[in-house]
Structures are given as C-alpha cells and as structure tokens.
C-alpha cells in the first residue's frame, strides 16, 4: 500500500472524529461482497465539514473570471456572437413550409448559396423573405428529394450548384433532413434555449473554438496525412441569414489559412472513389435531381439552378475536375429547367471572393440584388420571356 503516513494519520483523526460524533466510518468502502447474505444497506454519505458557502462563492467568482477571460480572448481574435448553425436551426426553417409558408421561395444549395445570398436584400426587393435551407459542404439532393415528397411545398426553388459538392453528392450535413422529421421536444427546447440565452451573448460558443478543436489544431506531430478541418467562415442569424465572416477580408493570415485548406481539399484523397465510379456517381446525382425536379414541377413549383461565383485556384480546380459541358449542361438538359451560370452574366461577375469560394459581406449584398434582378428579368418576373426559350439562350 503506497499511502503515506500522514494520510493514514488523517484517516485515523477523521475516524475518531466520526466516532465521537456517532457517525459511521467515512473511509469504509464496503460492497455487498463484504457482507455475504446480508442485504445492501442504504449507503450513508455524510457531508464533510467544510465552509460550503464560501466554497460555492469562490467557485462562482473564479468560474465567472475564467469564462470572461476565455470570452475576451476570442473577442480579441475578432470573433463575435453568432447563432449556431445547427440541425435544430435548419429544422425551424424547414417547418415553415409545412406551417403555412408552402408558397415561399426556398434557397437550397451549399455554402455559396448560403453565405452569398442576403435574405434582407431579397426581402426588400421581393416583399417576402425566402426560406434558407442550404447547408455548407452539402449537396442539395437529400433536402431536394425531401421537398419533392412534401406536397405542402408549392413555391419557388433556387438550387445552388457548387460543382465539387453537387456532382460528388457530398453529404457533410445532409442528416439534417432526417433530424428535422424526428426532432424531439427536448431537442426543440434545447435549440430554443441555446439560441435565445447563450448564442447571442457568447462569442466563444462556436464549434471552431471548442476546447478539443482548439487543442487538435495545435502543431502536433503529423501521424497521417489527412484533410485539414474547415475553419470558421461565416456569421449566422436566427433565420439562417448568413454571410462571410469579416476576418476573411481584414486578416490576410486567416485568409491564407483558409485558402491552404481549400488547396489541401483539392488534392486526391484515399477515400475518394476511382474516376470511373466518380463519373457514374455524377450521372446518378444528375438523374436523381432530374427526377425530384420533375416531381416538383408537376405540382407547379418553379425551379431554377444557379452556379454561384468562384474565383482563383478554386475556379481552376472546378473547371478542370468538373467541366461545365459534362456537369452543368448535362444537369440542365436532364432536368429540363433553366439555370444561371455566373460567368454568362456581366452583372454577376467582378465581386471580391477573399478565399476564392465565397463573396465578401458587402459585395454579397450587392450580388443578391443583381441576382434577384436577373431572376425576375429572365425567369420568374411577370415580364420574363418564355422560360424554356431563355434556358437555351443562356447557354
């Protein structure tokens, strides 16, 4: 037994004090095995003699100091409170369709449609605020099939096409669809409490600054070459209005980090399917999208694809790996609906994309207005030419 003399003395003192107080031996650790045939007694857990009031006060004060310090540390880094981009938040928007807003405009895509379209700008022009159902790093197909199967949705649908996500069928956060249908009351309450009482006030409450995430990105020895995790990119509001975080504009070092992450993702990884399988998968994504779109159009939903701007090394990678003729053109042909390809419209070009993939906040507001005007002029507006005629003209 390695226990020290002083500790044994302490135990004895305590036992004696307990015996004086008529209390059972505090240190005794007995189990049913020590009393064969005797029922397990109700365990006695006497509260040790300590100044509990002072201890509690000290704990609370110290905890407040620690949390305030942590919050201050992240605010100094440029982080500000943002509503967490959770499945619960997505579910709240998805429910709007079944709660009387089935005729609304729905935005469904990846991070580009998510960060680059500004709901307040759209609302100012259109009179109604769209429902944002995009998710970063996630192909729209699972949510699209879910909408196609929901007869309550009869509105308009703008589908974002970021080639690498859309045609690979990447499903980073597609589980949100299943979550929205099965969300339990406790999950709903948790979402509500968190977005009202925690997220608006604490900047550090962002997955990118969780203790494990912060520790994991320290310069540890690299054991296996892996994809770099994506860093914080955007700020989100309570109805999922989302925009690129200003740090991407103001901090060149952070911008470089994010660009390096994209370059890292563009490498060939061992978990990617071989080229033949990838091509087959691409065709399947297009086919399933066309089927879902056909279902939606059959009940009068207006569908429009949009290829949002990208730039620099990201655009080069997309053009090389997902050539427009094989992917975008095939998608429009198979689904028979029109699309807006940013490179075809002068008004959708010339915006600043700090990390090549998303438009900076102020530019994205202007971009939203321009995109809305194109959509109204050529596709959805009362004076738009025949939709099918424009679809062929646009290409």
């Amino acid at each position, binding site marked *: 037994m390695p226990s020290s003399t002083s500790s044994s003395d302490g135990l004895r003192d*305590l036992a004696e004090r307990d015996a004086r107080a008529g209390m059972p031996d505090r240190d005794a650790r007995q189990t049913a095995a020590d009393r064969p045939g005797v029922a397990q007694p109700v365990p006695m857990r006497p509260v*040790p003699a300590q100044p509990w009031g*002072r201890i509690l006060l*000290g*704990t609370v004060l110290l905890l407040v100091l*620690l949390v305030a310090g942590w919050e201050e540390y992240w605010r100094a880094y440029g982080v500000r409170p943002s509503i967490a981009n959770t499945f619960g938040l997505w579910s709240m928007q998805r429910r709007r369709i079944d709660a009387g807003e089935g005729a609304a405009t729905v935005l469904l895509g990846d991070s580009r449609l998510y960060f680059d379209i500004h709901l307040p700008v759209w609302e100012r022009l259109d009179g109604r605020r769209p429902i944002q159902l995009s998710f970063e790093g996630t192909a729209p197909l699972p949510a699209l099939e879910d909408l196609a199967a929901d007869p309550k949705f009869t509105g308009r649908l703008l589908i974002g096409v970021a080639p690498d996500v859309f045609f690979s069928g990447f499903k980073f956060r597609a589980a949100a669809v299943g979550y929205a249908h099965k969300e339990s009351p*406790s999950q709903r309450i948790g979402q509500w409490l968190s977005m009202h009482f925690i997220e608006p006030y604490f900047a550090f*409450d962002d997955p990118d600054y969780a203790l494990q995430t912060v520790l994991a990105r320290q310069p540890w020895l690299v054991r*296996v070459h892996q994809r770099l995790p994506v860093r914080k990119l955007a700020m989100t509001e309570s109805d999922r209005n989302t925009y690129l975080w200003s740090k991407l504009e103001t901090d060149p070092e952070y911008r470089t980090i994010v660009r390096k992450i994209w370059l890292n993702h563009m490498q060939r990884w061992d978990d990617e399917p071989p080229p033949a399988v990838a091509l087959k998968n691409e065709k399947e994504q297009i086919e399933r999208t066309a089927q879902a779109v056909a279902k939606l159009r059959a009940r009068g939903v207006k569908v429009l694809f949009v290829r949002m701007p990208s730039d620099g090394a990201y655009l080069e990678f997309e053009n090389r790996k997902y050539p427009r003729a094989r992917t975008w053109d095939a998608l429009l042909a198979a689904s028979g609906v029109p699309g807006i390809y940013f490179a075809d419209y002068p008004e959708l070009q010339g915006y600043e994309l700090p990390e090549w993939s998303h438009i900076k906040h102020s530019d994205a507001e202007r971009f939203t207005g321009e995109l809305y005007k194109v959509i109204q002029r050529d596709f959805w507006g009362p004076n738009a030419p025949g939709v099918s005629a424009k679809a062929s003209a646009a290409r």
Partner: protein
Amino acid sequence: MTTMLLGGLWHGANWTFVAWGGLHGVYLAAERVLRARFANYRPGPLAFVALGLLTYTLVNVTWVFFRAKTFGKAWIVLRAWRARTMPPSRSWQTFSLFSVAAIVGGILLTHWLMRARTLESVIARAPAAAVSMIWALMAFAIIIAQGAGSAFIYFQF
C-alpha cells in the same frame, strides 16, 4: 446470464446489444468458475496488473458491440485492433491518441489513488480554496468543451 442478456436488450433493440450483455454474462460466469477453482490464488504485483489489463481488454471488446450498429461494423473495428487495416483518412491523428491516453490514464490514476478511500474523506481533508478551484476548473472545462448536443440522453428514448 439471463440478467445480462436482458440488460443488453434494455439498452437497445438490436442483437449487438444482446452480444454486449451476453459477453458480460460469460465473463461473470467465467469469473465464478475461476474463483471456485483457484480459491487460494493470490496474484503477485505483476499478475495483478496483467489481470487488470486483461479484464480491461475483454470489457473493451464488449463495448465495440455496444457502439457498432451492425455485427459487420463491429468486425471491422475488431479487425483494426490487430493490424492497420484503416486507410489514412480513417486513422487517428497524434492529438486523438494523446487525448485518449490522457483521459484513460487520468481515470486509472484516480481509481488507483481513490481505491481505499471515499470522496467524502478526501474532500474533508482538502483546503476550502482547493475545492473551489477544482470545482471552478471542472465547470470551466465543461463550458469551453461546448459539447455536441444539449439534450439529456435519457430524454431520447
């Protein structure tokens, strides 16, 4: 054995949970048999540690079945224990190995230090300031770790 099998089933309607319970039942039965057979055996310090590690390893096998959704997936994990069958993208980085070692090491150390005393006796002897500090640090760690879900697990049934 029945208790363990039902205990397994209580955790979820899947045969993998039954396997988890069944393995525990088999272990307990084996322990009874061995205790009767080697009633006078007292392990030396080396054997003591070795037997502890053996128990730990055997229990870890059961948890694979608890966590895996199918037996197929359980085999994949069990196979990966003896050879590097995982592609690099599924392998663990240094930090993950370090954090598991730190947590498991911490648990073992705590159990070793606390094996002959109660929490109450330790707190009774600790200076009040130390109790405050440890409580605050634990609460702080919980807050900054954030956690994935806020819902209590037993609400999910």
